[in-house]
C-alpha cells in the first residue's frame, strides 16, 4: 500500500468532497461535456449505432415482458438458465476482473498499473451495470428481489450473498470512480480496497451458486468459485487491453510511455493467466472423464457432442490458444496484435460462460434411471428475444464506454 494509510475522519472527507465540487472542477466537467458535443463524426456514427442497438433491444425486451418470458424465451423447466444468465455471468466476470487487475495499481501501488486505473474502474461499473440489466430481464420478479432480499434473507443461499455483495461492490466502485475523478487518491484507495474485497467475495459466491448445486454434477465442487476468480482476471486483462486500445482510437490519440508500459504488463499478465486457464481447463476435463455418469455425459457433450464446436473452436482456439500465441508473438509491444488477442479472448470467454451455464443443465435429472425421458441431452437454443436482450447488454456497455471516453476525456490520470 502506498505511504502509511491513516484513517481519514468523516468530517475531513466531507470537507474534501465539498472542496472538490468547487467551480474549477465543475467548469472542467462542463468543458468536457462541450468537448463531447464536438467529437468527431465517426464517433457520433459509432454512438448512433450503439444507441440504436440499445433502443431496438429495449423494444424487444419490453415486448418479452409484455408477452411473458415463457413465450419469448427458449428456457425450459429442465434448462431454466440460458444465454441471459451466461451473459450476466460474462459481464460480472469482466467487471470483477477489471476491478482485480486495476487494483494492482491503485490499491496495491504498483506504478506500472496506474495509468489503466480510471478507465478500468469506470468500465467495471459499466459492465456490472450491463450485467444487472441483462439479469433484470431474466429474473421473473426483479422488483420483489430488491424487497425480499432485505426483509426475508436466506443466509445459506449463494444467490443472496452474490446479490448483496455485488450491490455493495457496485456502490464502492462507483464511489471509487468519483474519488479518482476528483483526484482523492487515498480515499479512492480505501473505496477500491472495499470494492475489491466485496467483488472477490461476490464473484466467488457467483461461482459457488453453481459449485454448491450438488444435484448438478458438472458444476458441483470447489472448482467453480476458484475458477471464477481466475477467469475473471483473464477477462479483466482482455477488457483492459481491448477498451484502452479502443479508447485511444476513439480519442484519436497516441499512448504515452507509461500507458504503453501499462499495456505491456497487462499483456504479460494476460499471457500468464491464459496459461493457467488452459491448465485449469485441461484438468477439469481429465478429472471429469473419470466421474459419475452424469458428469461424464456433460464432458462428452463438450468434447465430442453438440458443444464440440463451441469448445474446440471458440473456447480453445479463439479463447485461449490463439490469443496466447498472438500475445507471445506481439512481444507485448505490438498493440494492434494485442488488441486482436484481447478481442479473441473476449469472444472465447463469452462462449465459455455460455457453455458453462448450459452444459451444467443438459444432462437430465433422471439420467441414471434410464427412463425414456432422460436418454438424450436436453436441447437449448437462444430465442430471438434472448439474443436481443444480450445485444442490449452489449449496447449499453458500448454506449457508456463511448460517452465515458468523451466526458472523462480519455480517463487520463496523473501518476502519484
Amino acid at each position, binding site marked *: 500500500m502506498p505511504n502509511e494509510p491513516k484513517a481519514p475522519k468523516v468530517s475531513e472527507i466531507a470537507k474534501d468532497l465539498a472542496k472538490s465540487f468547487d467551480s474549477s472542477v465543475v467548469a472542467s466537467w462542463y468543458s468536457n461535456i462541450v468537448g463531447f458535443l464536438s467529437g468527431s463524426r465517426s464517433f457520433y456514427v459509432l454512438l448512433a449505432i450503439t444507441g440504436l442497438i440499445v433502443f431496438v433491444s429495449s423494444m424487444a425486451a419490453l415486448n418479452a415482458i409484455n408477452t411473458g418470458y415463457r413465450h419469448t424465451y427458449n428456457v425450459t423447466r429442465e434448462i431454466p438458465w440460458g444465454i441471459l444468465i451466461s451473459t450476466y455471468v460474462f459481464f460480472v466476470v469482466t467487471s470483477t476482473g477489471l476491478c482485480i487487475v486495476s487494483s494492482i495499481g491503485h490499491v496495491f501501488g504498483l506504478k506500472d498499473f496506474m495509468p489503466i486505473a480510471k478507465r478500468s474502474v469506470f468500465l467495471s461499473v459499466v459492465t456490472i451495470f450491463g450485467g444487472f440489466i441483462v439479469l433484470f430481464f431474466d429474473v421473473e420478479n426483479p422488483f*420483489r428481489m430488491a424487497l425480499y432480499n432485505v426483509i426475508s*434473507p436466506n443466509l445459506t443461499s449463494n444467490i443472496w450473498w452474490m446479490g448483496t455483495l455485488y450491490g455493495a461492490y457496485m456502490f464502492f466502485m462507483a464511489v471509487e470512480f468519483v474519488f479518482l475523478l476528483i483526484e482523492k487518491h487515498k480515499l479512492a484507495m480505501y473505496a477500491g480496497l472495499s470494492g475489491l474485497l466485496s467483488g472477490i467475495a461476490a464473484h466467488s459466491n457467483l461461482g459457488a451458486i453453481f459449485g454448491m448445486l450438488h444435484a448438478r454434477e458438472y458444476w458441483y465442487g470447489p472448482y467453480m468459485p476458484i475458477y471464477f476468480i481466475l477467469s475473471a482476471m483473464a477477462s479483466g486483462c482482455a477488457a483492459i487491453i481491448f477498451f484502452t486500445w479502443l479508447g485511444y482510437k476513439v480519442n484519436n490519440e497516441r499512448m504515452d510511455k507509461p500507458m504503453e508500459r501499462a499495456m505491456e504488463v497487462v499483456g504479460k499478465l494476460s499471457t500468464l493467466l491464459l496459461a493457467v486457464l488452459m491448465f485449469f481447463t485441461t484438468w477439469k476435463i481429465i478429472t471429469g472423464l473419470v466421474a459419475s455418469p452424469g458428469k461424464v455425459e456433460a464432458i462428452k457433450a463438450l468434447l465430442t457432442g453438440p458443444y464440440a464446436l463451441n469448445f474446440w473452436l471458440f473456447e480453445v482456439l479463439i479463447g485461449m490458444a490463439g490469443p496466447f500465441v498472438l500475445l507471445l508473438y506481439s512481444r507485448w509491444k505490438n498493440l494492434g496484435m494485442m488488441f486482436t488477442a484481447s478481442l479473441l479472448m473476449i469472444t472465447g470467454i463469452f462462449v465459455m460462460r455460455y457453455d458453462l451455464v448450459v452444459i451444467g443443465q443438459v444432462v437430465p435429472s433422471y439420467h441414471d434411471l434410464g427412463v425414456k425421458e432422460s436418454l438424450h441431452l436436453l436441447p437449448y437454443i437462444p430465442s430471438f428475444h434472448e439474443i436481443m436482450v444480450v445485444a442490449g447488454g452489449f449496447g449499453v456497455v458500448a454506449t457508456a464506454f463511448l460517452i465515458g471516453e468523451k466526458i472523462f476525456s480519455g480517463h487520463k490520470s496523473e501518476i502519484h
Partner: protein
Amino acid sequence: MNMNKTDLETLKKDDIKTVSPIERREFLKIGLAISGIFAGGTILSVVSNMNKVFASPEEFSEKYPYKPHYSMVIRQDRCIDCELCMEACVITNNVPDYGYRTMILEKEVPDAIGQKKEFIPVLCNHCNNPPCVRACPTRATYKDKKNGIVMMEYGKCIGCKTCVVACPYNARYFNEEKHSIDKCNFCFDTRLSKGEKLTACAAACPAGVRIFGELSDVNSEVYKLIHQIAKPVWVLRPEIGAKPNIFYMKG
C-alpha cells in the same frame, strides 16, 4: 456367543433335505434383498439401506423429525400409466398445461424377458435436506417446521429459478399465473389442511401405487412398508444426500 465345542458336535447335520421349501424361499428372498440385485443392481443392499433409505437414520423407527412426517411409498410395479394421478393433481391444484407437479416416467428394457416396460411416478421428494430450500435467496421456498412439507410462499418468489436448477428431482416449474415457482405440496392447501387424509394423486390411483401417510405413526401403511427387509425399498438419486421422503418398492 456361548456355544462350546461339544454343543457344535451334538448338532444334527444340516442337510439340504431337512430344509423345507418355504424356509428355502424365505432364505433366498433375504439373500436377494441383501445383495440388492433387484432392478439391475440399482438398488442398494440392505446393509447400507439402513442409512440411505430411511429418511433420518439417527431417528430410525424411534421418531421422525416431523409430526406428522408425511411420506409416500410408490409401489412402482403396480403403475400402469393411466395418468389418473396426474389428472387429479392438475384439477385439484389448478396446474397449467405447460407445467406439472407430478409425472410418470417410462422405462423401456427391450431385451428384458417378459415385461419390457415399467412406469416410475415422480413428484417432489419433500427432502429432509432440500437443496432447493438452501438455494432460495428470499426463503420463498421453505420446509414446513411442523410437517416437513417443502412449501412455497408465492409472493416472495423472485423467479431466479435457482431452486429449479437445484432440485435433483425436476419437481419445480415457473407458474405464469402465480408469477412464482410452483411445486407439489402434498395437496396441503387443497386437501390435507381441509381434513382429507390423502393427496389427490394417492386418492385417484386405481392400482394402489401411491401409498401416502404418516411415517412417524407406527400403525400407518407407509411405516409398515418401509420398516421391513423382505422387500427392497429405495429412493431416487440417493447419492445427492437430500434424504427424500418418497420411497420406491416393488411387489
